[in-house]
C-alpha cells in the first residue's frame, strides 16, 4: 500500500497509457485479423481470436485491376506533387528568409487562409475549369490542385528550417562571391536536407490519405488509392476481404513514413509554430 501511495502518479499514468494504447490498436488489429481470415471465418459467432491465417485476400487484391491502378496512380501523383511543392516552396522560403519582401505579412496570411479554407470552394469551380483545360482526371492536374494545401505547408516548414541556419554562413557565402542561386543550393540546401526530407514525408502522408479533392477532380484514369478503397464499399454488397486488405495496405506505408519523420511531426501539425 505504501508503494502504491508513493508511486500512484506513475502507476495511474501507466494505466491510462495502457488503456489508450489498447483503444488505439484494437480496431487496427481487428481489421488486420479480418484481412487474414478466409471468407468462411469472417463472420463466425463468437468472433475467433485464433485461426489459421491465410494471405488469399492479399494475393486477390493485387489481381483487382481497379485497386492496383489506384495504388500506382497514388504513387505517381504523390511524386509529382512533392517535386512541385518542395522546389517551389524552397524558393519561396528562401525569398522570405533572405530578402526584404514588402508584402511578407499579407503573403503569410494568404498561405494560412488557403490552407484552411474548405476544399469544395476550390474544387467545384475547378471541376469546370479543369475540363476546359484538359486537366480533369489527369495525374498532373490532381498534383497541381494538391498544391493549395501542400504548398503553404511546405513553405511554412522550410522557412522554419531555414531560420535555424545562422546568418553568418550566408554572409560568408556572399563575401566569397556566391550568387543568390548558388547560396541556395550550395550553402542552404545541404544544411536543411533533413528538414526537406521531413517535409516531403509529411506531404506524402497527406497526399496519400487525401480523398476530397480527388473525388471532385478525377473520374477513372487518375483515381488515387483512397478512391480505390472506397470502391469496395458497394451499394448492394460490401467486399469485406477487399475492404480490410485495402485498409491495411493503405495504413502500413504511412505508419512507417510517420516513424521516419517522427521528430518533426509536431512541427508539421502546427505549421512550424511548435518545435517537436
Amino acid at each position, binding site marked *: 500500500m505504501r508503494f502504491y501511495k508513493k508511486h500512484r*502518479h506513475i502507476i495511474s*499514468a*501507466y494505466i491510462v497509457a495502457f488503456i*489508450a494504447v489498447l*483503444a*488505439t490498436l484494437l480496431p*487496427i488489429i481487428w481489421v488486420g485479423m479480418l484481412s487474414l481470415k478466409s471468407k468462411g471465418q469472417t*463472420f463466425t459467432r463468437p*468472433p475467433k481470436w485464433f485461426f489459421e491465417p491465410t494471405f488469399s485476400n492479399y494475393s486477390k487484391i493485387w489481381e483487382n485491376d481497379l485497386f492496383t491502378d489506384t495504388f500506382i496512380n497514388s504513387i505517381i501523383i504523390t511524386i509529382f506533387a512533392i517535386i*512541385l511543392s518542395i*522546389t*517551389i*516552396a524552397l*524558393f*519561396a522560403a528562401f*525569398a522570405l528568409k*533572405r*530578402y526584404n519582401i514588402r508584402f511578407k505579412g499579407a503573403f503569410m496570411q*494568404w498561405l*494560412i*487562409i*488557403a490552407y484552411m*479554407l474548405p*476544399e*469544395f470552394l*476550390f474544387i*467545384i*469551380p475547378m*471541376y*469546370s*475549369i479543369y475540363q476546359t483545360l484538359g486537366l480533369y482526371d489527369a495525374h498532373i492536374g490532381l498534383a497541381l490542385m494538391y*498544391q*493549395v494545401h501542400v504548398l503553404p505547408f511546405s*513553405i511554412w516548414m522550410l522557412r522554419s528550417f531555414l531560420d535555424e541556419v545562422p546568418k553568418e554562413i550566408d554572409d560568408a557565402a556572399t563575401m566569397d562571391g556566391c550568387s*543568390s542561386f548558388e547560396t541556395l543550393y550550395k550553402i542552404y540546401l545541404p544544411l536543411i536536407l533533413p528538414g526537406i526530407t521531413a517535409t516531403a514525408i509529411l506531404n506524402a*502522408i497527406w497526399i496519400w*490519405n487525401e*480523398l*476530397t479533392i480527388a*473525388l*471532385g477532380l478525377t473520374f477513372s484514369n487518375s483515381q488515387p488509392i*483512397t478512391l480505390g*478503397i*472506397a470502391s*469496395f*464499399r458497394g451499394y448492394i454488397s*460490401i467486399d*469485406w476481404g477487399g475492404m480490410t486488405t*485495402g*485498409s491495411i495496405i*493503405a495504413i502500413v506505408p*504511412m505508419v512507417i513514413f*510517420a516513424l521516419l519523420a517522427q521528430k518533426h*511531426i*509536431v512541427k508539421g*501539425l*502546427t505549421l512550424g509554430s*511548435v*518545435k*517537436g
Partner: protein
Amino acid sequence: MAKNSTGYYFLLPSIIVLGFTSVYPAVYSFILSFYNWNWGAQQDFVGLSNYLFLLGDREFWIVIKNTFLFAFFACSIEVTLGILLAIYIDRISFGAGIIRSILLIPLMISGIVVSLMSKMMLNKLFGVIPYLMKQIGFSSGFYGTKDSAMWTLIGVDAWWQTAFVFIIILAGLQSIPKEPIEAARIDGVSEWGITRYIRLPMIRSLIFLVILFRSIDTLKIFDLVWGATGGGPGLSTEVVQTYAYRTAYGFLQMSKAMTIIVIFSIIVALLTIFYHRVDRKMR
C-alpha cells in the same frame, strides 16, 4: 538583408501556383454564386437570390446545425481527452517513446479508411462491437438510425483525431522549464495543483492553437462522413461539405453549391484570421 528584386523572382512561382489553385477558383465561386448556373448553357445574373433562398431554406439550416453540432462535440471531446492523456503520459519516462508512437498511428490513417473500419466493426449483422454489446445487454443502431448516426461519427472522429491534441500538448508540456515545477514541489503543492496552476497556464497559447486547428478541421469534415454515412440516414449526418458535394455533383446545381461554400468559407476565413492575430499577439 539584400534590397533588390531577386527575392520577388524567387517568390513568383509560389504566387503563380497558389494564385491559380486558390485565388482563381475562390473568386470564380464567389462570382458564380450570383448567377443561376446549373451546368448548362444558361447562366443569368440573379443577384442575391441564391443567398436569400438558402437563408430561408430549412434543409440548409439543418445542415448548418449538424456541422456545428459535430464540430462542437468532436472538438470538445478531442481537446479534453487529448490534454488529459498528455498530462498523464508526460509523467512517464520509461517506454514513453513507444507509447507516443503507437498513439500517433490513427493520425496517419486516411478518413476514408477510418470510416470503412468503423463501418465494418459497427455493422449490425457482422460487426464485432454490436456483438460484444449484445453480450452485456446493450444495443445501438450506430450509423443505422437517425438518433445515433451523428454521435457515432463524433465518437469515431474522436478515435481518429484525439492524437492530434495529445501530441502537440505533450510536446508543450515537455518543453516547460523544470525549475518552477521543482520549486512548487518543494513547497508541497500536489501534482494536480502543479498541473492546474503551473503547467496548463504555461501552455495556454498552445491549447488555444489546438482548439482552433481542431474546430476548423471538424467544421470542414468530409471524407469520414462521406465514407461512413454519406450524410444519411435522411439528413441526420449531412454536413456543409457533403451537402455542397451533393448539390454540385449530384444535382448539378453549381451556383447553389458555390453559394453554400462561399458562406461557409467566410466563416472559416474569419476564424483563421482571428487565430492568426491572436497567435501573433501571444508569441
